[in-house]
C-alpha cells in the first residue's frame, strides 16, 4: 500500500513538473477582436487539446507600455511565451535576450533587419500579399462597376502587404481578362474606429466602388456594416431578410454592394454582404510554434514566413456567396493557388514589384 502511494505521489510529482506552461501576451484590445489575438488564442487552445500536458494562461495588454512588464512576467512563470502583434517586436526582442531559458514565439512579427534574432525566439509572420492577391482576383471578377475599394487601418507592413497583394490580384485579372478594374485606396489611420471605416466605405461606394476590402481590425467592422446598410437600401430589403432573398435580389439587380473580411473568416458577420474573407492562419502558426518548443531539439529559432505554400494564408471558402463567383473564375483561382504553391508566380509585396507585374506568362490549361 505504502509503495503504491509513494509511486502515485512520485508519478504525480513527475507529471506536474513536466506540465508545459504556455503563456500568451495579447496585443492591445485583448481577446474578442475576431482577428489576430483571437486567432493566436485559438492556436493555444488547439495545443492544449492536441499536445500532452499543456497548461495555458493569458495576459492582456491594455496599452503598448504593458508589453515589456507583461512579457517579463510571463517569462518568469512560463516555459513558452507567445507575444502577439506587430507592435510588440521591440519588446519581445528585449525580453527574449534577458530570459535565454524560456522559449519565445512572436506572432505577426517581422524580423527587423538590424537586429539578430536570439536563439530562443521564433518569429512567425505571413505573406499577406499572397492572400490579398487571391482575394483581389476574385473581387475583380465579381465587380460590376469596375471599381474596387480598400480601407486600411494604420499603414503598417502587414496591412501594406495586404493592400499590394489585393491590387496585384486586380492587376493580374486585368491582364488575363483584358479588363480595366481600378482600386480606390484609403487609410483611416486607426484600428479602433468603426465609424470612420464606415464613412470611408460610403465615400468609396459613392465614387463607384461596389466591393470594399476591410483591412483595418475593428475599424473594418464599419466597412462590413456599410456594405450591409448600402446593400439593404439598394435591394430594398429589411435587415433580417434571409440569405436566399439577398442573393436572389443580387441576381435580379445584376449588381450589389459587398465588403471583404480580413484575417479570419468574417463572412458570417453579414451573410450575403461579405463576399469573402482574406485570411491568415494565425492559429496554425501559434500551434506550430508551441509544438516545436515542446521538444527543445526541434525548436527553430529565427523567422518563419507563412505563405500559400504552407497553407498559412488564403481566402475563406465563401460559404454564403460562392454562387456569385462564376465556375470559370473558381477554376482559375484553384489554378493560381496551385501555381503559387509551386512557387511559379511571383506575387509582388512592394509598390515597385507591383509596378512591374506581368502575368502574361500564365496560361490556364482549360
Amino acid at each position, binding site marked *: 500500500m505504502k509503495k503504491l502511494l509513494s509511486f502515485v505521489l512520485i508519478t504525480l510529482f513527475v507529471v506536474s513538473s513536466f506540465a508545459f506552461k504556455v503563456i500568451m501576451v495579447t496585443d492591445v*484590445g485583448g481577446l474578442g477582436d*475576431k482577428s489576430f489575438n483571437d486567432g493566436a488564442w485559438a492556436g493555444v487552445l488547439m495545443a492544449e487539446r492536441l499536445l500532452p500536458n499543456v497548461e495555458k494562461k493569458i495576459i492582456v495588454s491594455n496599452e503598448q507600455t504593458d508589453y515589456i512588464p507583461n512579457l517579463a512576467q510571463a517569462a518568469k512563470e512560463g516555459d513558452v511565451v507567445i507575444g502577439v502583434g506587430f507592435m510588440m517586436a521591440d519588446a519581445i526582442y528585449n525580453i527574449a535576450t534577458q530570459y535565454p531559458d524560456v522559449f519565445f514565439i512572436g506572432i505577426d512579427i517581422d524580423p527587423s533587419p538590424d537586429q539578430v534574432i536570439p536563439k530562443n525566439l521564433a518569429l512567425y509572420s505571413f505573406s499577406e500579399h499572397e492572400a490579398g492577391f487571391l482575394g483581389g482576383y476574385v473581387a475583380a471578377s465579381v465587380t460590376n462597376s469596375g471599381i474596387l475599394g480598400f480601407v486600411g487601418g494604420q499603414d503598417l507592413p502587414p496591412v501594406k502587404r495586404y493592400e499590394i497583394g489585393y491590387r496585384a490580384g486586380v492587376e493580374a485579372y486585368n491582364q488575363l481578362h483584358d479588363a480595366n478594374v481600378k482600386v*480606390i*485606396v484609403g487609410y483611416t489611420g486607426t484600428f479602433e474606429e468603426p465609424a470612420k471605416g464606415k464613412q470611408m466605405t460610403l465615400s468609396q461606394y459613392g465614387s463607384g466602388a461596389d466591393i470594399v476590402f476591410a483591412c483595418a481590425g475593428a475599424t473594418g467592422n464599419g466597412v462590413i456594416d456599410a456594405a450591409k446598410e448600402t446593400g439593404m437600401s439598394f435591394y430594398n430589403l429589411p435587415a433580417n431578410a434571409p440569405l436566399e432573398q439577398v442573393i436572389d435580389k443580387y441576381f435580379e439587380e445584376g449588381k450589389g454592394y459587398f465588403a471583404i473580411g480580413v484575417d479570419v473568416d468574417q463572412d458570417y458577420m453579414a451573410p450575403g454582404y461579405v463576399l469573402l474573407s482574406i485570411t491568415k492562419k494565425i492559429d496554425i502558426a501559434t500551434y506550430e510554434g508551441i509544438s516545436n518548443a515542446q521538444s527543445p531539439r526541434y525548436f527553430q529559432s529565427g523567422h518563419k514566413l507563412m505563405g500559400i505554400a504552407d497553407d498559412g494564408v488564403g481566402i475563406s471558402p465563401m460559404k454564403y456567396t460562392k454562387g456569385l463567383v462564376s465556375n470559370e473564375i473558381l477554376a482559375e483561382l484553384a489554378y493560381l493557388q496551385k501555381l503559387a504553391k509551386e512557387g511559379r508566380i511571383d506575387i509582388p509585396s512592394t509598390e515597385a514589384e507591383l509596378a512591374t507585374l506581368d502575368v502574361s506568362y500564365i496560361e490556364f490549361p482549360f
Partner: protein
Amino acid sequence: MTWIQAIFTALASPLFYKLTILSALPLVFAGIGGVFSEITGVTNIALEGIMKLGGFVAAVFIFYTGNPWIGLLMGMIGGLVLAFLHAYVSIEWSANQIVSATALILIAQGTVGFLMKPIFGQEGQTDFLTKIPMIKIEPLKKVPFIGEIFGELSAFFYIAIGVIIFSWFLLYKTPLGLRMRAVGENPQAADTLGVNVKGIRYFGVLMSGVLAALGGMYIAIGDIGQFQELMPAGKGFIALAAMILGNWNPVGTMWAALLFGAADAMNIQLQTLMELPSETKALLNLLPFVLTIVVVGGFIGKTRAPAASGVPYEKE
C-alpha cells in the same frame, strides 16, 4: 486630379455633406450635453466616459431584449446615473469637478471592461446588434442632391434636430433657461433672488448625462450596430472642443460639430478622389485634430465660459 480640383469635387458632392453629418452627430449630442452642464456652472469633462457607458448599457439591453428602443431608453438612464454621481460629489460635497469627472471616465472604462465578458461572452466587442432604424423618406429621396443627403438617415439625426431646437428654446426662451444661465454666471446673486442653485445644477448635469449617453449610443447602436470597448475613441473630448468653439451655446456647438465633421469628411473624400502616397494619407488623417487645435487656439480669446463654471457653490 489636383488638390484644388479634388477639394471642389468633394464640396460639390452630396456625399460630402452626408459624411459631415454622420461625423458630427455624436459631437452634437455630447457637445450640447456639455453646454447644459457648464452653463449651470459645473464642468463636465466626463462626456467621454458617459458616452462609453451609455453605448454599453444600450448594447446590453438590445442584446437581451432585441429591441433597440428599450436599449435607447436604458442607455439614457445609464448616462443619467453616471452623471448623478458627478452631480452629487460636485454639488453636495463641492469636490473638484475635474477630479470627479476623471474618476467617472475611469469608472466607465472599468465597469465596461469588467462586464463585457460575463455579458457578451467576449471581450473587445460585441457581435452586430439590432440598430435604431434608419428613416427613409421616399419623396425626399427623389429630390436631386438634397435627397442624397437627407433621404435616408438614422433616426438619431431627427433626435439631434429635436435636441438642438429644444435646448436652444429652453436655454434662451424660458424662465428656467434664464435661471440656469444666472446660476452659471453668478450663483450668489441667483441664490439671493430665490433661485434654487443646487436644483438647477442637478438639472444641468443630469441633462448632460442623458445627452452624452445619446452621443455614445449613436456611435454604438445608431451608426454601426455594435459596441466596442474602445468606443467612443476620444469623441467625448472633441465634443468639449466643439462646446468651447460654439461659445457654450447649443446652436454654436452644432456649427462647431459640423466643422469638425466636415474636416473628417474632407479627409475621407480626398483619399477617395485622389491617388496619394500613404504618407500623405496618414497626414490627412490628422486634419480633424489639427483643425481642433488651430480653431480652438484661434478662438479661445473670443469665446467666454460661464463665469462660475467649475466653481463649487456653497451657501454662506
